């Protein structure tokens, strides 16, 4: 995690400079909107990382990890989310019922995703407390 | 003031850019091949361990920046002539070009008549040679591009706008065509440009229309 936000924020800053250059030279709405959106997305990413962990903007190599890491092996819900989005948009062009079917599956898969994430978090807590116990 | 000749501007830049490109390619090809020939099949432990020389690399980048500046200087000068100076020239004749799927309509407002090329370009665009010819480009449906390859110049015809370009021709017959994909019969959207002497142009235009308005 250490330093993870640095290249992202640095790159966002170069984008910002270029966006300003573009705005000064060209001053077009669509250009400005696209360039600012890109800057906002990249900065947003960097700032989110920084807020999650302050060491994200600190230099130096990452220290050895002490916390447990959860690595899921499979996720039905994630696959279904992708498929349901595809199904719903395909429904736009082909048949309306697929649109509604896709939305329904999407909602159900998000529900299942929440269950998966909660299960993952509880397992991680369990592992951490076991390690501390040892 | 001499006429701006798009062909000459293109050929001039081409004559500088392309030899430089060929030279750079040859240089890198030779250096890479030489490196491969010299350093192949040495035992692994003899590989050098140095891996940077930032001063050298920095000077190299500065040299590249100078090359870029040189090319930009040439390009900017030529671009200024083709795009800005050309349109300041006094035009001998104005042609309104209306692009539509999949033909060209050339209107001569000073003479009050139009020529429709028809798909596959049966009717020619006629212009006087040796004089500045102004084209007002527009389109009625999708984006087309007005292109005469021999003049080394093209410009888009976009619906909702009229764009002004100024070209000059030498005597002759030139092929022209749409250069922006515009749908089913795009390959057939061609025309022919006949550049004739100003006198014959005048005669041709008067025979077609009501004659030049004073």
């Amino acid at each position, binding site marked *: 995690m*250490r330093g*993870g936000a640095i290249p992202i924020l*640095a*790159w966002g800053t170069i*984008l910002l400079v*270029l*966006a300003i250059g*573009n705005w000064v030279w060209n001053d077009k709405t669509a250009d400005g909107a696209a360039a600012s959106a*890109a800057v906002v*997305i*990249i900065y947003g*990413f960097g700032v989110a990382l920084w807020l999650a962990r302050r060491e*994200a903007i600190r230099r130096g*190599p990452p*220290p050895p*990890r002490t*916390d*447990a*890491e*959860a*690595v*899921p*092996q*499979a*996720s*039905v819900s*994630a696959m279904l989310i*992708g498929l349901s989005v*595809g199904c719903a948009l395909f429904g736009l*062009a082909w048949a309306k019922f697929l649109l509604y079917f896709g939305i329904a599956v999407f909602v159900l898969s998000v529900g299942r995703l929440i269950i*998966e994430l909660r299960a993952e978090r509880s*397992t991680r807590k369990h*592992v951490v407390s076991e390690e501390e116990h040892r | 003031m001499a006429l701006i000749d798009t062909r000459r501007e*293109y050929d001039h830049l081409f004559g500088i850019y392309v030899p430089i490109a060929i030279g750079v*390619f040859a240089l890198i090809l030779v250096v*890479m091949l030489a*490196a*491969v020939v010299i*350093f192949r099949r*040495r*035992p692994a432990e*003899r*590989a050098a361990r140095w*891996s940077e020389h930032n001063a050298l*690399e920095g000077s190299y980048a500065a040299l590249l*920046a100078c090359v870029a500046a040189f090319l930009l200087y*040439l390009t900017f000068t030529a*671009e200024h002539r083709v*795009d800005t100076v050309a349109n300041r020239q006094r035009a001998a004749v104005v042609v309104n070009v209306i692009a539509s*799927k999949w033909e060209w309509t050339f209107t001569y407002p000073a003479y009050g008549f139009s020529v429709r090329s028809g798909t596959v370009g049966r009717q020619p665009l006629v212009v006087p040679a040796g004089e500045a010819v102004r084209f007002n480009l527009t389109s009625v*449906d*999708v984006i087309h591009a007005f292109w005469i390859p021999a003049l080394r110049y*093209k410009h888009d015809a976009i*619906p*909702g706008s009229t764009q002004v370009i100024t070209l000059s021709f030498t005597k002759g017959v030139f*092929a022209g065509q749409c*250069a922006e*994909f515009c*749908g089913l019969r795009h*390959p057939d959207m061609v025309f022919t440009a006949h550049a004739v002497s100003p006198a014959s142009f005048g005669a041709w235009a008067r025979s077609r229309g009501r004659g030049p308005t004073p």
Partner: protein
Amino acid sequence: MGAQPGEGADPVSVATAPPARISRMTGWLGTLTSTDHKRMGLTLGGLSLLYFLLGGLFALLMRTQLAQSNMHFVSDNSYNELFTMHGSTMIYLFVTPMAIALAVYLVPLQIGATGISAPRLALAGLWTWICGGLIMQQGWFASGGAGRAGWSSYAPLSNGTNTPGVGQDLWVIGVILAAAGMAAMAGCVVATIARRRAPGMALLRMPVFTWTALVTVLMVVASFPILVLVMVLLYIDRHGGHIFTGFTGAIDYQDLFWFFGHPVVYVMFFPYLGAAAEAIAVCSHKRWFGYIAFVASMMAFAAMSTAVWSHHMYTTGGVTNQYFAFTSTLLLVPAGVEYFDAIGTLIGGALVLRTSMLFALTFFLQFLVGGLSGVFVASPVLDYQVYGTYMIVAHFHYTLFAGSIFGFFAGVYHWFPKFTGALLRERLGKLQLVLMVIGTNLTFFPMFFLGNDGMPRRVSRYPTHPGWGTLNELETIGAGIIALGVLVFLVNVWTSLRRRVPAGDDPWLGHTLEWATSSPPPPLNFDRPLPPISSYSPLLDLRHEEMDRGGEPAEVSAAR
């Protein structure tokens, strides 16, 4: 804390949660729902490769139609579908996703992580992309045909009046899904690099490929949402929305499209550059030269991609040509730095001319033709002539095909042993290389002359000018030779997997962490403690230390 960064020992404690009831899938469902980054990378890469074959088939059909000036092999409408779907398949469904697939597979390994961040988001993105590809190709079965307004589908040509029909709608939806899916996966790679580097893996110790992957996924994250937005607006426009109307509408579409479209050009280049760089460094037994300069130029290069897009619009009269000529020409500086670094790596090395090395070298040489012609078309005055012609087709095929695809094959020959545990056949690889070099240059070099001479792109027929017939015939023959080269590659993969020559963990004396685990790597990537990481080539450091201690010099075991 307290321990030295990068000191051996188990890198992380791992919880392979969640409980069995939810996570353990076996058989085909296990494969499809796997959140292992290696599984996802292989699925994405494998499907992309199928799309490469499909897009190549479209190209062969187009080249057959163009073999002579007035062939009637396919109709005008079919030709328009073919070139649209060739470009779209190659860009949205092969070169871009393959770039992301390489990043998804390799980045966690190279930075010593156990997996990818937000693996569920990556999996959802993968399936979204899969849906997008299938939906785009569904257009072939629609009445009126598949998308046929070009891979860039300029408005107003692509609106409901000028290109009616479900096929174009399916194209728009396909692009939305493919772009959104790839953006999701790219976001996961960014997060992985930010959050999950192994102890000791400081930013400036990340391998060269990981840096190219990082700038790539950053560009994806910054620009693909814009594409999704443009395509949503185009969809609304096609269904009575009147968004891209008039001159401003037409120009806005192009501005927004190319704001995505130019970064994607580099998305389709950088990871392959990284692959070629790794192959060259490993096959030279020498660290990649000029690391810091390379990283800085990558960052600048990638950022510049968001400031050059209107060089695709010089002829529209709607952009400030000089500004974009300035930024575009300036790109030759970071590009030149790459070449300097590649040559610097070769000089003083101990080169082994394996297939991966040869592909990497031809990548650099052939891409140079594309790059130098790129400087040429960055000049508005020159572009006025060659925009929309075969000269442009030649230029971007030299960057994408003669460049990126050769870099891709360099990567395949380099990492195939890691992906599968088996070696590819070197002799078939060299045969493939020879065929592809001949085919590529035969196909694309004549296009420079044709374009300069006045042959527009995207035409199914062309006038019978002197010389054009011969050049086009040569190109068609060249396309056939490329196809033969690809066939040899498929045979190579097939034989190598059927009659396996075990690769071992590190057949090439690799420099980076992916070679410090078994081939293919186990589910959590590393089955042994990570070596200390004090540079961007930790395994080379170990060998150097061993040599300095007077140990046995490392054998060039796999030098064949």
